[in-house]
């Protein structure tokens, strides 16, 4: 098997000087695929994602992007390397307009961003209508679209989403998943953490079940959906 | 160096600074025991203020920048308690002023009650406005008349309501009334602290700072302008004192004889006697307050206080009423500042509102607490002594620096002219730099909290 596009390889570490939360955990995403991380509360799903993004101390294992070791880089430098990250909370500039949010997303770029912005508006048409409205005034689902749109503005080579559907209604959640699939179809690999394991597994090409900071199960979304053990413990039978 | 050895050294060092001031005129020291004692007395008062602020900041993390106001209120209490009532003032308008104040308070209480009863809406807003505006005009009408009456009484000498000293003409014989005034000063400050705390505690930490900054300015504006109360900028002088008067001592043959046997002339002996008397009184108060503060903080209440400071969210989750606890300690700390303020007016023998400067009475106390060690009562007291010494000595030090740096320069040189004023400005600069250095390199202060 060739090296995946982005891989956090046997990562062990925790926040600051605190105890280790991850213990030899591996997550990866291939080009053109959606990889999801699921697991029970406190399993370290978000932590694993943040480790890949450089937001915690990984003292053994490595993170590689397109074959390059980026373990020592800061999150900001990883953004420059082509990683887009959408945090779970506080992921928009609430007091700024939708368009300004997108502009800020492209802050590191010095070239013309109009085209990218156009692409984002095509992906999320509602944002075009609300482009001059303060992002903080939008509905939960629309805000998540702004957040994803902002991350897309850097033209990332890989997009990481931390629980994009947290706190939105089931209908909005379905729509968000559709959008995420659309983003993936544009060729951007997506790595995401999801609380709603069943829906996430349905759209996942690759899925990781984490338990207490280690990999419990790995496989395609369909495989894990079919796995009786996974069904029993995470999907309610 | 063990911890207690370090502390012993620090205490001896600071004590040494005061001894040097009293005994040698080398370098910047004056070599006058009188000046050393004066410095000590003010240091004792400052230490009490620092103790009060340390309760608020060190033990509860409350940021009070209105110390000056509480200190000034204490000073007002000294006047209102230890001075004799102005003859005829009550009849001329005193009752009317009191009635006015009661009406003012009643307006506020009534408004609060009405607001509590009425449902929110336009009607309530209207009722509030009508009550407040109507109450205000009524209050002014009653109050102003009274003020006029009082201020008309012999304005060159009085024009104020006076105090509660029942000695009349011989009020100075009742010097102990001054000591009674000290705790009353604490009560005054506590009342003001209650009002501020009720409003600003529980909001973001810097709002309390700004609110206290404001109340201090207002308290001072009241003391400066309400002549009927405090004679304003005309000052109240001749406050009674709890220690004997120098002149009486000098006229006492027993005392002069005793002084002679010590080898002192009566003049020097009497000033030293008076100052030592104050020192002893203040020391008793300081030790008592320190003891109480220590007792309080090792009690369950004190432990809870520190638990709240260290983790407010956790304490709140455990069902502690953080705001109520903060209010308690804020009132206590402010009261201590009020006591110190009353003491200061007593030792000065006069209330001079224009001498209250925030840099001297608010920010200097902060430097004391931070240098001494926030969270440690002994540290705050030590900081009080050390920083007061510095505050006084910086001026001669500045002059010395000015002398050294401008030696050989033409006195009309720009730099020389600027440097000649340097002593006075040096205080602010030094205090600021000391504060910044301690915050940066030793944020826990000289005597850190254990």
């Amino acid at each position, binding site marked *: 098997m060739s090296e995946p596009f982005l891989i956090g390889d046997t990562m062990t570490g925790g926040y600051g000087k605190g105890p280790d939360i991850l213990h030899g955990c591996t997550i990866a995403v291939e080009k053109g695929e959606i990889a999801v991380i699921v697991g029970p509360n406190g399993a370290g799903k978000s932590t694993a994602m943040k480790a890949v993004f450089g937001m915690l101390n990984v003292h053994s294992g490595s993170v590689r992007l397109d074959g390059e070791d980026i373990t020592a880089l800061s999150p900001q430098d990883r953004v420059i390397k082509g990683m887009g990250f959408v945090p779970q909370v506080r992921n928009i500039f609430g007091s700024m307009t939708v368009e300004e949010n997108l502009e*800020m997303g492209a802050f590191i770029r010095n070239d013309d961003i109009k085209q990218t912005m156009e692409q984002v508006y095509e992906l999320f048409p509602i944002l075009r209508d609300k482009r001059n409205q303060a992002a903080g005034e939008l509905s939960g689902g629309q805000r998540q679209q702004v957040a994803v749109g902002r991350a897309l503005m850097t033209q990332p080579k890989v997009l990481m989403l931390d629980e994009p559907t947290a706190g939105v209604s089931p209908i909005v959640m379905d729509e968000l998943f559709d959008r995420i699939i659309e983003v993936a179809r544009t060729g951007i690999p997506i790595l995401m953490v999801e609380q709603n394991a069943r829906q996430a597994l349905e759209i996942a090409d690759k899925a990781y079940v984490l338990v207490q900071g280690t990999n419990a199960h790995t496989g395609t979304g369909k495989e894990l959906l079919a796995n009786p053990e996974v069904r029993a413990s995470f999907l309610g039978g | 160096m063990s911890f207690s050895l370090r502390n012993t050294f620090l205490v001896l060092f600071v004590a040494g600074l005061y001894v040097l001031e009293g005994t040698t005129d080398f370098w910047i020291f004056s070599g006058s025991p009188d000046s050393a004692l004066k410095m000590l007395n003010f240091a004792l008062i400052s230490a009490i203020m620092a103790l009060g602020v340390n309760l608020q900041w060190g033990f509860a993390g409350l940021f009070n920048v209105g110390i000056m106001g509480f200190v000034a209120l204490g000073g007002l209490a000294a006047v209102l308690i230890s001075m004799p009532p102005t003859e005829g003032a009550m009849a001329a308008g005193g009752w009317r002023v009191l009635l006015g104040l009661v009406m003012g308070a009643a307006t506020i209480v009534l408004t609060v009650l009405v607001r509590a009863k009425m449902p929110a809406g336009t009607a309530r807003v209207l009722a509030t406005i009508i009550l407040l505006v109507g109450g205000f005009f009524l209050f002014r009408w009653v109050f102003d008349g009274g003020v006029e009456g009082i201020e008309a009484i012999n304005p060159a000498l009085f024009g104020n309501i006076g105090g509660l000293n029942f000695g009349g003409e011989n009020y100075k014989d009742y010097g102990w009334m001054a000591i009674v005034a000290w705790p009353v000063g604490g009560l005054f400050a506590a009342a003001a602290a209650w009002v501020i705390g009720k409003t600003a505690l529980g909001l973001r930490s*810097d709002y309390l700072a700004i609110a206290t900054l404001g109340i201090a300015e207002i308290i001072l*504006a009241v003391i400066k302008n309400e002549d009927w109360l405090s004679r304003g900028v005309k000052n109240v002088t001749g406050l009674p004192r709890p220690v004997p008067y120098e002149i009486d001592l000098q006229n006492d043959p027993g005392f002069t004889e005793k002084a002679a046997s010590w080898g002192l002339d009566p003049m020097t002996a009497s000033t030293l006697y008076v100052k030592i008397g104050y020192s002893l009184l203040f020391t008793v108060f300081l030790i008592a307050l320190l003891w109480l503060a220590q007792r309080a903080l090792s009690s369950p209440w004190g432990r809870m206080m520190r638990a709240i400071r260290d983790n407010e969210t956790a304490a709140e989750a455990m069902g502690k009423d953080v705001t109520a606890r903060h209010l308690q300690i804020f009132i206590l700390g402010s009261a201590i500042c009020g006591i110190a303020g009353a003491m200061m007016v007593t030792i000065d023998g006069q209330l001079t509102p224009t001498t209250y400067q925030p840099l001297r009475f608010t920010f200097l106390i902060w430097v004391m607490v931070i240098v001494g060690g926030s969270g440690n009562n002994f540290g705050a007291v030590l900081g009080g002594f050390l920083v007061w010494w510095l505050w006084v000595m910086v001026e001669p030090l500045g002059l010395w620096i000015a002398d050294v740096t401008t030696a050989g320069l033409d006195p009309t040189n720009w730099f020389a002219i600027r440097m000649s004023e340097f002593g006075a*400005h040096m205080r602010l600069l030094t205090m600021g730099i000391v504060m910044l250095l301690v915050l940066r390199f030793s944020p826990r202060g000289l005597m850190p909290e254990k």
Partner: protein
Amino acid sequence: MDYLNALVALANFVIVPGLAYGAQLAIGALGVTMIYGVLRFSNFAHGDTMAFGTAITILFTWLFQSWGISLGPLPTALLALPFGIAGCALLVLGTDRVVYKFYRAQKAKPVILVIVSLGVMFVMNGIVRFVIGVRDINFADGERFIISARDFKEMTGLDEGLAIKTTQMITVVVAIIVMALLFYFLNKTRTGKSMRAFSDNEDLALLSGINPERVVLVTWLIVAALATTAGVLYGLDKSFKAFTYFQLLLPIFASAIVGGIGNPVGAIAGGFTIAFAEVTITYAWKKVLTYVMPESLEPDGLVQLLSTDYKFAVSFAILIIVLLFKPTGLFKGQSI
């Protein structure tokens, strides 16, 4: 009843001075609010920053005057203002370098930064006193009035005069320019937007590749410009005295909080609210009322709600009311 004279008296004693004072407070409050928005603390050294910038401006004004340079009817201080801003910028950037940067790296709690700013206040206060002394300095030159009360009376034939001081006019004009520039910068330029983004959501701004140190640098530069401008305008209108500038801290904080701290529009609204409240409450209304009331109802007192000595009480009272009923301020605060 004479409404026209009443109106003129009102304009002369309340509206014109209130506008000028409001503009000064608003620019001061903008500085406080910018620091709060980006650096997240209430800067107690702001009054002394204003004093420092003004002191440098005064020094340059004197220098220009000694060279015989003047702006004709306008005060020379306007010419010296850029130099004052530059001096002030050097001071605040130096302070940030030596003092604040350390605490930023430590992610110190806001209250620690407030205490640190107290120390900075001491030092700046000492520097200002060293540079220019403690005296009251009047440095306004040029034409004193655009229109004096007497000219106005002659022109209109009214009993009441309306005097407009040059400095009042300049204050309002400069304030409008400053505000327009600031809003253009914050809303239209990339750097300005990145500052708003940083103020709104620091973590996300970092993720977007916004350089925090650059944002901080630009903020201090703007603060230096705002503080110096506010200080110079106030000094021209009244006079310069180091201690007065410290005392301005209270109305300026009140303006920023009343408007919603961190919100520039709020700072401006707050500045005018506080200024007009102060002026109307401490103004003796007798004159205006005698014109509008029927003779029988004419007031016998001064009809002054509070003596001018209590002007701080006004800002304070408004501050308390806002804190009690709407702690986020009239406009929603918290971010620029």
